[in-house]
């Protein structure tokens, strides 16, 4: 097959490309330039958008012995991932940009262009397995549970999976690093990327405040009546479930359901127990807090379902995962119509945030996913 290997400059995608070559495929490496203003050097271990990463990818391709190109997808990435990320937070939801990137960029823009140019598949360094089952191509969890990335691939449909290649799904990460070293790949010891690649300093709240809250504290305008603050701050109240004001915040952006740190409420709870974010309302500019038990979610509604194969029929016993690196939770899912999925959890779960994906599993197999719209406590 003619394979397009997406090479981020990290160790995983480099080994994945090398394995595709070993498997006898005709492999071409591409580095996706996703940042409009690429920085020369990484700050810390984050990101995959710097010129240094492009160079690391190029050197890996040299060592593997494959042609290498850079594809500029900055505009696409900004439209489909970054702007969506900002809009979702503005609406009080907590998006996962990696899913979005896989769905809209890596396995859409890149795959479509690759197919049109004569390639048969897109190969990435994701930790997930593709197995051929009775119903066609199946997406399964990786054998290394600590590295499993099937959650961020749960948005891929059958057509996308048919043209995907994940050569690392059967291998533990530590072995991938050893293999990279034995192949002479200089990225063998390169740290894993974390956080969100387009927020290079890791400060998500600051990133959102700069874009959504130009009148806020980060803009440098004096709070309230600064001459530079043309727009109002989204600062507001922190309240309990009964609506009693407990404190204030500088801006709703950056608060995530289940968050405990950074609330800075002066007075402790009457029962002395820690308080968590239960709800974020950008319109009312309130952050609602409560006890850990108040976080318990028993069910949820989700929109925009995407299925890796046949959609479930009726009420189906399965496991769901509601955030990256979350535990699988036993549940019953029911597809209400083409657009709406209902999930009933067998046991209450915490830290379930609208905007995140609920990925449905049957054992290790990914059935599909949907975007969490609301939760039932």
């Amino acid at each position, binding site marked *: 097959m003619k394979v397009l290997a997406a090479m981020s400059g990290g160790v995983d995608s480099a080994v994945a490309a090398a394995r595709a070559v070993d498997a006898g495929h005709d492999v071409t490496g591409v580095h996706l330039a996703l940042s409009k203003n690429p920085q020369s050097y990484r700050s810390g271990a984050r990101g995959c958008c710097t010129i240094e990463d492009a160079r690391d990818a190029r050197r890996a391709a040299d060592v593997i*012995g494959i*042609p290498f*190109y*850079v*594809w500029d997808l900055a505009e696409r990435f900004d*439209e489909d991932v970054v702007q969506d990320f900002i809009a979702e937070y503005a609406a009080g939801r907590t998006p996962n940009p990696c899913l979005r990137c896989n769905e809209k960029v890596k396995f859409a823009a890149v795959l479509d*262009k690759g197919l*049109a140019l004569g390639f048969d598949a897109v190969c990435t360094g994701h930790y997930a397995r593709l197995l051929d089952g009775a119903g066609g191509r199946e997406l399964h969890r990786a054998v290394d549970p600590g590295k499993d990335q099937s959650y961020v691939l749960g948005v891929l449909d059958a057509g996308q999976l048919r043209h995907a290649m994940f050569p690392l799904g059967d291998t533990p990460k530590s072995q991938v690093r050893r293999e990279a070293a034995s192949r002479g790949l200089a990225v063998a010891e390169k740290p894993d990327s974390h956080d969100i690649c387009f927020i290079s300093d890791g400060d998500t709240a600051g990133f959102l405040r700069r874009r959504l809250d130009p009148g806020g504290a980060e803009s440098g305008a004096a709070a309230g009546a600064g001459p530079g603050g043309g727009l109002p701050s989204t600062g507001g109240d922190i309240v309990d479930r009964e609506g009693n004001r407990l404190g204030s915040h500088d801006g709703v952006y950056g608060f995530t359901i289940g968050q405990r740190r950074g609330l800075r409420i002066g007075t402790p709870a009457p029962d002395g127990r820690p308080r968590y974010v239960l709800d974020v309302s950008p319109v009312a500019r309130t952050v609602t807090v409560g006890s850990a038990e108040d976080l318990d979610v028993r069910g949820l509604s989700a929109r925009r379902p995407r299925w890796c194969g046949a959609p479930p029929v009726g009420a189906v016993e399965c496991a769901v995962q509601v955030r990256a690196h979350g535990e699988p939770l036993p549940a019953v899912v029911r597809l209400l119509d083409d657009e709406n999925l209902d999930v009933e959890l067998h046991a209450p779960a915490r830290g379930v945030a609208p905007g995140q994906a609920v990925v449905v599993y049957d054992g290790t197999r990914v059935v599909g996913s949907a975007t969490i719209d609301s939760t039932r406590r």
Partner: protein
Amino acid sequence: MSADPPTTAYLDHAATTPMLAEAIEAMSRQLARPGNASSLHATGRSARRVVEESREIVAQALGARPSEVVFTSGGTEADNLAVKGLFWSRRAADPRRVRVLASAVEHHAVLDCVEWLAEHQGAQPVWLDVDEFGRVGPETVQAAIDDDPGSVALITVMWANNEVGVVQPIAEITRIAHEHGIPVHSDAVQAVGALAVDFGRSGLDALSITGHKIGGPLGVGALLAARNLALTPVLHGGGQEREIRSGTLDTPAIAGFAAAVSHAVAAQAELALELADLRDDLVARVRAAVPDAILNGDPDPDGRLPGNAHFSFPGCEGDALLMLLDARGVECSTGSACTAGVARPSHVLLAMGASDDLARATLRFSLGHTSTKADVDALLSVLPAAVERARRAGLVSASSKR
């Protein structure tokens, strides 16, 4: 380290061209000999002799005096020295001189110097508009000067454009500028060896050339600078070259460079005819194979570099086409190479009035001294299928945009 690349049809001589046997021989001979050309002993004098003979060869070939040849590390350094050096010295002589007139289609080596001077040194850039072929009209230069002649520090207009190959009216521009006593620099990196370039006859005050575009080694070039021209140095140190360029002279590279200049200039007239024939054949066959391909630059073959053919392929992305041709052993360029390897729409095409899409849909085929009809045949054997495929990919990209 790694295997040699497979045999390819190399249609990217404007990026760099293979070294001439004469240049390899001249350079290799010096690589085996010791000596710092600035040393006073016999070994040093021997190296100095090679440098000075090389200087005379370069001067002779390009219509300059030996003392007007300032060796540099290549075209970029020569452009930096000319643009920054002239700006600083002219403004030091008269603080009103802050305007820098430059064509909108300059190579980044000039473009970025001007922008840097604007950002950090108080320069006021005046970008000279070009016509649809990429050419600066002398009347445009005249009008820009007339706005305020006393405030012009320098004018810089390339001899021939590296992307679309258009030849600029250097003699006329220089004549107009000199009526006001304004110095003119020209980046002639693409012109030497392809066109008749005579520094003395051109009237220019400064002219940049480089070795590797004419069959010489990489990493060496020269600024031809009129003897009375005051230039403030960019590189400070031992002052080896006329006190305006420092750094131990690279005797082997300079020897190879001189051999290449000498050969390229001697062979220029004949090579230009050959390349123009080959290029005209390439253009005609590309147009026959891809009827909607747009030839960019001057359609008059005499108005462009003889080895240059530059097209927009509507509906295609240039980098997709480049990849498809590369996979079939045909090597060309989308325009000028860029640092991160990321394709941006060409500023040259945009200045010529092309749309963003057409400016991204370009391929440049550039011929040189090793080019043959077989290279053109190889291109035409794979181009139609590549265009068809790239066009499909272009449609997919366009339709999946919301």
